[in-house]
Each structure stands twice: as C-alpha cells, then as structure tokens.
C-alpha cells in the first residue's frame, strides 16, 4: 500500500470513531470500554496525517515518539515497521495509547487540530501496539546486549521503574527491580481499572522485560526489608521510582466513618485484590448504593465508574469547581457521563455524617461559585455564604490526590527532598547521593504515566553515563 494521497484527499477523511461497548451494558461489567480500531479504519485514520515537516505533534509528546514516521508506516499498511518505530521510542505503547491525556499532549499540537479534529494519535498508537503484542513473531527480536558487568537496582515496578529497566537491560546492565507489593505495574495495576487498561497488557509487557533478563523481586520494601544503603553497597547504581503513594486526607469531620475510603484503598481492593470482581477473591469491598466521589481527576473518574460497576444506583462526582475545569482526561468524563455518572459541581465537602453504628449516611458540602482568576489563570471557587448541599451517600471516596510516601525517604537521611517530601533531582535525574537517580511521581508528585516514563528514559541515559565513568 502506498501513502501518496494529496493533502486535499487527506483533509477529506474524517476522524475515525473509537468503537466502544454499549454504555448501559458496560456500566455493569469490568471489560475494556474501548474496543479498538480495526485495521481498515486505523489505516484510514493514519492517512489523515499530513506528515508535517514541522513535526509539531512530536513536541507535544513527553518522550518524543516519532509520530509522523509510525503513523506514516501504518498508512502504508506496514504494521511491522510502525510497531518497530513505536517500540523503539516508547517502552509501553499499549499503555500510553490508552491512558495518555492525548488532548493535552501530542494531539493538542497536531496541525490538523488547529482547524477541525486532530489525528487520533493515541488510538493509532494503541492499535499498532496491540497488533505488536499479538504478532511478536513478525517483529525483529530485540537484540540482547553484551553484558557489561554492572548491577543496577530499580525501586518500584511502575512505569518509571519499568522504563529504566527496559532501557538499561538493552545496554547490557544487570537489572533487579524491587517492588513492595506482591505484583508488578505500580499504579497501572493497582490504580487504573481493568475497564480502561486490561491487566493482560501489563502482564505481556512485564513478560517481555523478564524474557530480556530483567529480574523482578516482589514483596521487598526498600526502607524496611532492605535499606537504600544496602542497595548502594550491593549495586553499582540505584534508581528510585517509588511513586507518590500516600493519600491526602480530607481533613473534615466524619473522615473515619465506615464506608469512607481513600481512592487508593478502594481501587487497590478492586484492582489488585480483585474484590467484587470474582467469587474466588476473599478481599471484601463495600458496594454502596449511593456513592459520592470527591475530586475530578482521573482517579476520581476511575473510582466513580468502578462504583457503578459494583452496583451503585447513584454514583456522583463532587467537585468544587465546574466541569470545564476538571483535570481528568476528556474521554473519561465522556465515558462516565454515558455510564450514568452524576456530576455535582461547585460543591466543596464540609462534613460526612453517619448513623449510630458509624456508617456513612450523608455528605454535606459548601455551595461554591467561581470568583476571580488566580495566578494560574483559573477562576477560584469561593463559598456562597449560607448555602450548603446535602447528599445522601452510603459510600464516600476521597480522590483528592496523593503525595510522596515517606517510607523509603525517611530511612535515607542524606537524600535531599523538597518541602513536599519529593526527591530533588538535577536535569540528569541524579539525586543528592552519588549513583542514586530518581524519577516519576516520587519526584513530580502525582503526574502522568508518560511523564514518569520520560523521566525513566532520561535517568537510564544518565545511569549508563555514570556507569561508564565509574
């Protein structure tokens, strides 16, 4: 197939729609919502790309995926070539194609988006990556690098750690990942639900790394089982990618009532432990009838949609600003609406009330309105004096966010942190300790998968340089 359409012909093609499960059916099951493009529509979508010389889209991608090249190869029908380009640039394309906030990154910069709809880069990335996962034999095997005799410890098996491991095993280093939980993937496994990111995809990606020689040891908590000091003695370099796993508390009365969850607990029970998903899982979860989720980011959307799937009749997003200001990916908001999620806007939680057995019964909120713009340009919510909103709820989930977990850093007194407890690094991802590098959420605070991976890529380069000189 050739890709020699005229610009006019390209402009005439309209953006391919992502097929999805029926909203009513899917709001009660955990299967993936998006079904993926078929080959024909993926190729057609790829032909919409103008192959711009300016490569604006690439500048919008934190890891600089060669978008025109892989999309161009796809438009020619050369899937193997497209996959090879993509896998070279991005260690977890099947993940990023699904969870990147594309509308704020690559697709935001796409020239076609200036007048009309951008190329569906994320959907194409997903298509090519999924094809590659299922056709490994059609891809050139990854060459195993000659061993260089240096050992690197990676702390945390999330996207940052996995990226570092993949990059450095490719350069011939001996890599061991230490993970605190009993399973791999970090937030990809315990946070992001199956209906957005099937666990099978994480499993395949992990298997690929293990096949290339990466060792993974679960159930090892650095700071407890082993210290950073132990790692520095045993390894030539260390990467810290332990994420931002510490829930920010609401700090309002009633926070400790039964039925009040921090998002991490709620999602971990369901995603990591399988609560509510199968009869074989013994981990319990409270299935609320009326579930109020506080917050409006990706985490909040994941919680509220999970609540629907666990049987909630009313699943509500409670947010102190307005819909347009919600930080979640657009697609998540759109899907949540289709699935019957209610949006209670301009409401700021004041108090959670319970019954005599300490079970949640209601959530009382301060009514807000949007006032003056703050320094960031966003209009600040201010209270409407004397007006409150009372919501009946039997489960309340706090999805305000997470901050740096001090478990590891507290046992490494010489490691320099910022005032929020995040690890301070220089432009090369190096921490204040020699041979110790860091990246991902533990450096940035809760951010995105692709930013964590970008950090991992940069850190891997620095670690390689460091090992060459040491």
């Amino acid at each position, binding site marked *: 197939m050739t890709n020699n359409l005229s610009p006019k012909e390209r402009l005439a093609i309209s953006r391919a729609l992502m097929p999805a499960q029926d909203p009513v059916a899917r709001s009660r099951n955990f299967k993936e919502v998006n079904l993926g493009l078929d080959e024909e529509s993926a190729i057609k979508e790829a032909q919409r790309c103008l192959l711009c010389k300016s490569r604006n889209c690439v500048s919008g991608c934190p890891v600089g995926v060669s978008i025109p090249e892989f999309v161009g190869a796809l438009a020619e029908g050369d899937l193997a070539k497209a996959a090879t380009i993509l896998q070279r640039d991005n260690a977890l394309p099947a993940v990023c194609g699904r969870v990147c906030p594309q509308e704020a990154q690559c697709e935001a910069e796409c020239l076609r988006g200036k007048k009309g709809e951008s190329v569906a880069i994320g959907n194409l990335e997903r298509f090519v990556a999924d094809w590659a996962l299922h056709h490994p034999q059609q891809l050139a095997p990854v060459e195993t690098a000659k061993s260089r005799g240096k050992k690197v410890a990676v702390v945390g098996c999330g996207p940052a750690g996995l990226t570092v491991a993949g990059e450095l095993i490719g350069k011939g280093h001996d890599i061991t990942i230490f993970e*605190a*939980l*009993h399973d791999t993937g970090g937030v990809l496994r315990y946070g992001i639900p199956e209906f957005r990111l099937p666990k099978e995809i994480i499993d395949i990606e992990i298997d690929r790394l293990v096949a290339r020689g990466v060792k993974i040891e*679960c*159930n*090892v*908590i650095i700071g*407890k*089982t*082993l210290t950073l000091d132990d790692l520095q003695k045993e390894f030539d370099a260390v990467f810290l990618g332990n994420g931002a*796993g*510490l*829930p920010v*508390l609401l700090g309002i009365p009633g*926070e*400790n009532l*039964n*039925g009040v*969850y*921090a998002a*991490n*607990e709620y999602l*971990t*029970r369901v995603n990591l*432990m*399988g609560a509510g998903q*199968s*009869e*074989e*899982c*013994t*981990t*319990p979860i*409270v299935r609320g009838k009326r579930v109020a989720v506080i917050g409006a980011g990706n985490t909040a959307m994941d919680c509220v949609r999970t609540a629907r799937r666990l049987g909630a009749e009313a699943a509500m997003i409670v947010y102190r600003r307005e819909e347009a200001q919600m930080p979640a990916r657009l697609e998540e908001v759109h899907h949540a609406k289709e699935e019957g999620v209610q949006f209670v806007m301009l409401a700021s939680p004041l108090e959670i009330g319970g019954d005599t*057995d*300490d079970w949640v019964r209601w959530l009382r909120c301060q009514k807000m309105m949007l006032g003056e713009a703050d320094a960031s340009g966003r209009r600040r919510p201010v209270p409407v004096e004397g007006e409150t909103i009372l919501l009946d709820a039997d489960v309340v989930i706090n999805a305000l966010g997470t901050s740096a*977990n*001090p*478990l590891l850093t507290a046992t490494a007194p010489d490691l320099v942190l910022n005032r929020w407890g995040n690890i301070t690094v220089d432009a090369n991802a190096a921490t204040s300790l020699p041979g110790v590098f860091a990246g991902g959420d533990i450096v940035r605070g809760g951010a995105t998968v692709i930013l964590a991976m970008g950090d991992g890529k940069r850190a891997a380069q620095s670690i390689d340089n460091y090992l060459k000189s040491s």
Partner: protein
Amino acid sequence: MFPVIKNDLIAPKLHRLVVSAPRVAVARKAGQFVIVRQGVGEERIPLTIGDADPQEGTITLFVQAIGTSTQKIVNTPAGGSLLDVAGPLGMPTEIKTWGRVACVGGGVGTAVLYPMAKALAAAGNEVTTIIGGRSKSIIILADELAAFSHDLRISTDDGSAGCKGFVTDSLGSLLVDEAVRPQAVLAVGPAGMMRAVAEQTRPYGIHTVVSLNPIMIDGTGMCGGCRVQIGDEIKFACVDGPEFDGHQVHFDGLVKRLAMYKAHEENCRLLAS
C-alpha cells in the same frame, strides 16, 4: 514463595508457624509485622513477627484462625508455602529502660506481646507479664514468657488456670501498690481489653502502650485503610504504629472500623461451609 518449615497447633485454633523469609528475618525488630497472602485470590493480612532466626533465615508467626484468610494460613502444612510475605513493617517497639514494666496480653495478643516483652527484658527492665483468656486451653507461651519475666501471672475467666478473673484484675493489684507499680505498661489483645488497661493506668499517669490491629491492605502507608484516630490526629497504624499511646487512642472508632466487613465475612463463611 515462602516455605513453611514447621506448623504446630499450640492452643485451640492457634498455630505456631516457622516460615522461611531470609530478608525479613535479618531486618526485623521486636514489634514489627509482615503482610501475608496465602495464595492467589486471598486477602493480604497483617501478622506480627513473633520471633526470628537470622542465621536460619526464618521467622515465627503465631496465627489464630478466626476467618477465611487465617484459616487458609494455618492449614498450610510444613513443606507447603505462603505465596507472599512482605516486611518487616511498622515501627519497632520503643525499647527503653523504664525500670518496672508490666506486659499484659490477652488471647492471641499474647503472641504479639511476646517479642516486645522479650526485648524489654533484654534491655534490663523488670518485666511482670500478665496473660489471660477464657480458659486454660487458650493460654499460650507461658513457659516462653516465664523464661525472662520477673513474675508471670495468669488469669482465666473460668479459673481453670492461674487466678480466676481478668488480666485487668491482676494489673490492678500491681497499680495500687506503690512498691511494685510499673513505670510503663504494654497491653496487647482485643480492643476492649486494651481500652480497659488504658483506663486503669490513666489516673496514675503511667506511660501505656497498646498495639492496634485495624484492617490493613498494603501495610506501607499507601491505602489509608488502617487509619486510626490518636488524640486529634489521624494516623496510619501500619507506618506510624502499630503501637500507640493508649491514653490517646479512640478505641470506639477502632472497634467500629474493625466491624466494617462483618457482613461480608459472614457471607464468606456461609459460602465456604
């Protein structure tokens, strides 16, 4: 995989398991716990590290079979294995030389108490150990505790061993007598017992430590599920505890949160039977 080396029944429903977990055995200090998952699909549950042998690479767990997960764990025979053992977690017991220390244990709490009492005795404290339970058959570790205790007192509700009565009766007799009154008290057992001990020592202003047992998942401060109210603050028992100042603990909230999954657990038992 963490091989089970030994599994002995030491009291009704209470097993002593010796488990191979070399890294935990080396790193562990008194008062810390592990999170155990017996097999695929099972819950992650916290269990105190009762003892450890760093040379052999083993840890000892005392497990009371009260529900689905603990039953699966005690059913794992020597030669079998536990799928996941992660730790050591939590803050170690604060080992200070107080002088006289009373260590009070109820039921399986006695097993949790054992390593702490041992460490306190090793630090030069005069340890009076008070353990109790419903009847003789559930009194555990008496010989092990007697080995380092200045005085070991046993109480049973039915009088089948030691004195008839509650551990708090025995503690009360220590508190009233200034000559033997402890400078610190450590209490581990059901929430009701720990609360009673804390109320007993409060008027004397005696430093009182309790070891809390809220429901946990990760044990690393990530999920927030183990939160307990201590004074005006919310703390995570898995990272800030599990030991806290007994005079500051809101026991009411703890007891109610422990009942959060009662209906679910009963459901599981029905399904299993």
